[in-house]
């Protein structure tokens, strides 16, 4: 009889605990694995330093590159728009900050809801744009694997359900709020086992790329 | 009620009361639209103010804005009621109280004359009977 409320309580309770456990354990193990494995010993003589170029590449690969922009403007714009929209909605929406505060014991100031709302819309539009790009661009089509679609969906659902819940577009509210939380839990559960790990590994990877090139004495 | 009123309560002037909660503005626009309709084609509108999500002070601000007009009337039927026109002709404020003095209805009526002011047909009948009876009981030659 009280399905939607029971569902919300389950999503906020048991399901959340399980998802967080899988996420935290999974991410830590994977990071340990990556760091402890390291890279194969490079016996060749170093032709340059590793640290400087490594740091530099973290910055340069984070900023858009002119050549890529000219060839694939949609990838660049869509990518940035959706990442910023996602990050703003995730980290600067007051109810989310309350959750982080309850989890980690510290918090930060949030943004007024209309701004977060706009960011969420941009995030959704950006994600739709990159999906469209993947589906229509012949090169992107070849590059895209099944996992990419999965990861896209995992990212899209929390934004979509969050938007629907915030604007109360689906009744009853506990149901859509529960769906929103569940979609995030799905994301958390699959996070350590998919490309979503890039959230944690990207700076590591960028540094490594730069460092390798630096060692070989090449520009990166 | 009376026993409760004897308990002294120190009310600190709440800062909340000083500010507007922005809830009266949409209502005023609704009244404006209703007034425009009344002006254009004579359609009356009634709004139930007890169904409005007012915050502290919202109601006072609304009434302050509406002000007092030319006409006000008191009705004594199952408790007191007050019917008054605001400073904007055609906009009426009607408050009904129960016999215990508790407010049971608060309405804005945008109309030429609130229906409750008119004598009801049923009451006219009763009035007719009563007057006839009163006249018949008058003795002939008695000064009226």
């Amino acid at each position, binding site marked *: 009889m009280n399905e939607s409320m029971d569902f919300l309580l389950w999503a906020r309770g048991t399901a959340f605990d399980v998802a967080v456990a899988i996420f935290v354990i999974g991410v830590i193990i994977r990071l340990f694995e990556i760091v402890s494995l390291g890279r194969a010993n490079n016996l060749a003589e170093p032709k340059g330093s590793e640290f400087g170029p490594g740091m530099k590449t973290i910055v340069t690969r984070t900023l858009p590159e002119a050549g890529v922009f000219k060839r694939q403007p949609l990838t660049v714009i869509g990518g940035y728009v959706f990442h910023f929209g996602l990050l703003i909605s995730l980290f600067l929406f*007051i109810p989310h900050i309350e959750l982080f505060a309850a989890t980690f014991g510290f918090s930060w100031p949030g943004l007024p809801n209309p701004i977060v709302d706009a960011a969420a819309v941009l995030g959704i539009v950006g994600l739709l744009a990159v999906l469209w790009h993947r589906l229509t661009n012949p090169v992107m089509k070849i590059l895209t694997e099944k996992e990419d679609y999965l990861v896209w969906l995992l990212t899209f659902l929390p934004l979509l359900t969050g938007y629907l819940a915030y604007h109360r577009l689906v009744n*009853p509210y506990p149901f859509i709020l529960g769906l929103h939380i569940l979609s995030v839990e799905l994301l958390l559960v699959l996070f350590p086992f998919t490309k979503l790990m890039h959230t944690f590994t990207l700076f590591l990877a960028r540094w490594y790329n730069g460092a390798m090139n630096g060692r070989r004495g090449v520009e990166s | 009620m009376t026993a409760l009123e004897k308990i002294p309560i120190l009310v600190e002037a709440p800062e909340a009361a000083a500010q507007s909660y922005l809830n009266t503005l949409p209502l005023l626009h609704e009244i404006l639209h209703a007034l425009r309709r009344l002006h254009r084609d004579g359609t009356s509108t009634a709004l139930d103010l007890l169904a409005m999500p007012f915050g502290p002070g919202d109601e006072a601000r609304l009434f302050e804005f509406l002000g007092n007009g030319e006409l006000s009337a008191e009705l004594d*039927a199952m408790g007191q009621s007050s019917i008054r026109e605001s400073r904007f002709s055609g906009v009426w404020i009607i408050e009904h109280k129960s016999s215990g003095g508790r407010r*049971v209805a608060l309405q804005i009526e945008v109309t030429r004359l609130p229906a409750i002011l008119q004598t009801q047909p049923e009451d006219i009948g009763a009035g007719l009977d009563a007057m006839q009876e009163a006249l018949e009981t008058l003795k002939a030659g008695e000064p009226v």
Partner: protein
Amino acid sequence: MADPRTKTLGETLRRHGVSRRGFLKFCTATASMMALPPSMVPAVAAALDKASRPSVIWLSFQECTGCTESLTRSHSPTLESLIFDHISLDYHHTLQVASGHAAEKAREEAMHANHGNYLVVVDGSIPLGNPGYSTTAGVSNLQTLEETVAGAAAVIAVGTCAAFGGLPKAYPNPTGAVAVRDIVHDKPVINVSGCPPIPMVITGVLAHYLTFGTLPQLDQYGRPMNFYGTSIHDRCYRRPFYDKGLFADTFDDEGARKGWCLYKLGCKGPMTYNACATAKWNEGTSWPVESGHGCLGCSEPNFWDAGGFYNALSIPVGEVSRSVSYAAAAGLAVGAAAAGLNSRAKAKAKKNHGTVTVDDLEKKS
């Protein structure tokens, strides 16, 4: 005197010397109470004029009498009392003078005389764990309910206990408490939830039945849409602050004094559907958010188990920090073990590493 049951409300009021104006005023107030728009007043007047006196049987099960208190705590003659004067409350074991066999007899007589037409109001949940947990005159609540409801026109489940199980059903539900709707399937059941429900809402539902002879439109939880159709959050006067991101962080900071949104202090307004924001409490004096305390969500199913009252709605029910730290510890342990294995594998690889010279390669090819 004629049987009061056959007399209409219009007749009763006229006999009490109420003028037509007075009657219209009463109808305006009743329409407002039923949360109907003022344009419905003529229809309400026409219907109330002809409304006859329904018989009501009130059953109290596992409850705290708060619902009855809510209804009877009016200090002056009120609209509620007028409506109540007009119904025939034939059984309410807390309020009625008769007790024991006389009381039970009154219930049976009312059931008999009005078979198929009476209303049953229930407050409190029904224990299924052991019938002995709650009985009236030695009869289990379940049996009383089933017997009484058999000849009823409809059932009104007043309060969250009757509507959803409420406090008795809260984890771990020692009595096996269930709601009325879990038992009554063949009769319309209206849930008037709240802990307690707003008195005006209880009477509003009765008035609706009295006026139109039908039951109001219900939401997915069986609650009348007029009162439970919008959330507290959507009608809250503090909503502009929520939208602007202005929140009270404690109960006595600047934000609290300025009347900002109480979301961070645990307000459950966004998931709670009730009429508090407009109907208000204590004869229209105020309501929880107006008095500076967040909504507890008392009209929602399982609200007792929905996490701490002072935790923001977005915070999960369990203890997040604890589960995160446990998970992190587990992750670290497994990660460290994996790292250990990895470094052993690497050491082995290093040990097996041989040097190959150009001569060796040339020799092989």
